[in-house]
């Protein structure tokens, strides 16, 4: 229902931006950059011709419009369609990948002022720094001592399901990430709960934490194949221990990168873009001097994963475990429910398509609408009074505050630099068509959005990038993957990082198996090989390998 007075005035009156706070980000953002270089003012996202980062009225207008757009985006119907091409587990592999590319101390949406001091600290993309941090020396809590009298830490620390006391000799019980209580920190015996992870973001949900744990188990499985200290031709025990860790770490990263190349990216990228970039030496548009991440990727295209979560999942005996509950199952929100109990341990065939198993949970088709579960209490509260809760508004505000390249600028550059690809997107090739399609979608529920005709026209002419990427995916790829623009932005960064900064063992080519062999030889001398080489390039292969090496095929709770 609309107010009888001007709703825009009411919305703006309660908006702190109207009073000039916070401003957009104008200062340097170390670790970030713009796709194709710093855009001139005319090529940035604007509000009625003004840069919202430099104009309080434009920012207030932007906030009002984004409130309306976020309400539309948060209203995904219960009968929304599933994506048959992407099982649900890939949603959380994408999130882990995002954490390996970008890490900031503050979300842009909460950054105050033009110089908020936000930086991307991830630094070395796609080497699983999100798993290893700075290693056992700097992050000892993430790793278990090698023995009762051996302080060296080589294996990831895992917790027994449900905190099972008698689990010491039951390897199958160690299926949750490492977790701890911190007695006294709340003035109570148990205190706060903590995830013993190098990057605690990976405990945001019971789904992400278990995908994280799966890669930790891979590391532990690989480590288990390397002969113990004292049996290798290394010079000293310490050196041998370091070598074991280094080999297991790089082998795990090799598998992760192979899965990105071979399994994940082909599922989410437009086939034409995957064909263009999925080569040993892709022709990249963007060739930065360092590993900085384009804002148009981090705060634009790669937000597409936020549309993939289901409202509920089949997990174990639960037919429909609500997403909101899964998002609360972590050490921060539910410390006394940790470690995860049997009921919440994932059976991987429910999340990835495993041979001979029933179809897994599917992810949701990509489109500009997100699960309504994300508005549940305390998960993603409003930024300011009157703002919508949920993820959409935060994504939109972060993009609006960061001065991204506009969709129109990206379309024009792509049309000039990659005409064959751009031509496959009718909405990139024809701006009028794009605007008309966007206007139709944006204007469909004015009672909810409070967007008037001028707002709709303005957003259609200059749509926020994270919204457009999802809209493009729905319109031009049936929601089964990204469209052309979204795919190019993702491919440039991920395929680009894989190609630009190879691991030492990847230099020389030959694929994963050859890299694993080079890795073994470089540390342990000619002829040494893994007895069971982890040459797996997809998630089903990874799961099968871990099950075989850790003897989990018939585990309880079920692993496969």
């Amino acid at each position: 229902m609309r107010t009888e007075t001007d709703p825009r005035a009411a919305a703006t009156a309660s908006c702190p931006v109207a009073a000039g706070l916070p401003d957009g980000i104008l200062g340097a953002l170390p670790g970030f950059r713009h796709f194709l270089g710093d855009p001139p003012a005319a090529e940035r996202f604007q509000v009625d011709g003004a840069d919202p980062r430099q104009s309080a009225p434009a920012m207030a207008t932007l906030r009002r419009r984004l409130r309306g757009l976020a309400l539309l985006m948060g209203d995904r119907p219960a009968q929304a369609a599933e994506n048959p091409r992407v099982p649900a587990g890939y949603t959380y592999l994408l999130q882990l990948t995002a954490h390996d590319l970008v890490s900031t101390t503050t979300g842009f949406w909460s950054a105050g002022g033009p110089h908020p001091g936000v930086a991307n600290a991830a630094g070395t993309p796609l080497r699983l720094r999100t798993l290893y941090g700075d290693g056992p020396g700097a992050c000892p809590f993430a790793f278990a001592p090698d023995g009762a009298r051996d302080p060296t830490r080589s294996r990831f620390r895992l917790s027994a399901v449900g905190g099972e006391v008698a689990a010491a000799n039951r390897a199958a019980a160690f299926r949750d990430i490492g977790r701890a209580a911190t007695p006294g920190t709340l003035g109570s015996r148990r205190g706060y709960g903590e995830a013993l992870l190098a990057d605690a973001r990976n405990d945001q949900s019971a789904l992400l934490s278990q995908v994280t744990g799966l890669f930790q188990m891979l590391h532990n499985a690989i480590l288990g194949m390397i002969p113990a200290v004292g049996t290798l031709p290394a010079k000293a025990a310490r050196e041998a221990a370091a070598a074991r860790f280094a080999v297991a770490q790089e082998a795990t990263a090799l598998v992760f990168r192979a899965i990105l190349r071979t399994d994940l990216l082909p599922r989410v990228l437009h086939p034409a873009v995957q064909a263009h970039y999925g080569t040993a030496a892709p022709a990249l548009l963007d060739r930065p001097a360092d590993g900085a991440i384009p804002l148009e990727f981090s705060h634009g295209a790669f937000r597409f994963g936020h549309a993939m979560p289901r409202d509920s999942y089949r997990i174990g005996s639960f037919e429909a475990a609500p997403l909101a509950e899964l998002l609360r199952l972590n050490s921060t929100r539910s410390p006394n429910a940790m470690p995860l109990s049997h009921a919440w341990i994932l059976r991987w065939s429910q999340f990835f398509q495993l041979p001979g198993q029933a179809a897994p949970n599917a992810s949701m088709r990509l489109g500009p609408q997100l699960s309504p579960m994300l508005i549940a209490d305390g998960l993603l509260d409003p930024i300011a009074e009157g703002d919508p809760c949920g993820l959409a508004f935060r994504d939109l505000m972060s993009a609006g505050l960061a001065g991204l390249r506009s969709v129109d600028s990206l379309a024009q550059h792509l049309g000039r630099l990659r005409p064959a690809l751009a031509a496959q997107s009718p909405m990139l090739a024809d701006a009028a068509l794009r605007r008309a399609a966007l206007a139709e979608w944006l204007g469909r529920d004015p009672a909810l959005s409070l967007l008037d005709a001028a707002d709709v026209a303005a957003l259609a002419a200059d749509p926020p990038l994270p919204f457009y990427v999802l809209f493009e995916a729905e319109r031009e790829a049936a929601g089964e993957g990204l469209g052309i623009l979204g795919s190019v932005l993702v491919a440039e960064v991920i395929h680009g990082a894989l190609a630009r900064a190879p691991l030492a063992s990847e230099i020389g080519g030959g694929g994963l198996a050859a890299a694993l062999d080079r890795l073994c030889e470089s540390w342990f001398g000619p002829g040494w090989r893994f007895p069971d080489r982890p040459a797996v390039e997809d998630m089903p292969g990874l799961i099968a390998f871990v099950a075989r090496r850790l003897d989990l095929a018939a585990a309880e709770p079920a692993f496969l």
Partner: protein
Amino acid sequence: MTDPTEPMDMSPVNFENWGKLMKTWATGEDYVQNGHRFPVPRTLEEVKEQLRMAQTGVVLPARIQHLKVVQGRSDTLLLRLPPPDLVKASEQRLEAGDYSLPAFYNAHYDGQAPTPLPDKAARLKFHAQRIGDYSIANCQ
């Protein structure tokens, strides 16, 4: 065919927004503050629309076909009796399943999720306590 005892799906509910909407209806002051207007609804359609506008996440189950609005008074005992079939249906559910409380309570107890109730007797005791609470309690 709708289930006359179909429980409401509370998992996506934002209780804060839902509470603000109730306070707006009760007092006539706008607690939601998001630009929409929230008069006391006169029809179920108006309720559904306002639930959406206020981003409550509340979706009414198909069994609900009628609306009755009752405003309490501080000098009147308002006995808001739950539907008898729903009382019986929830008792039946509690034979096997735990009583689930909204997760926002955890935030007020140091993030601690409630310990599962040990048996049917404990669940039915808690059920009675909860009905006693929300059937008679006024806003504090």
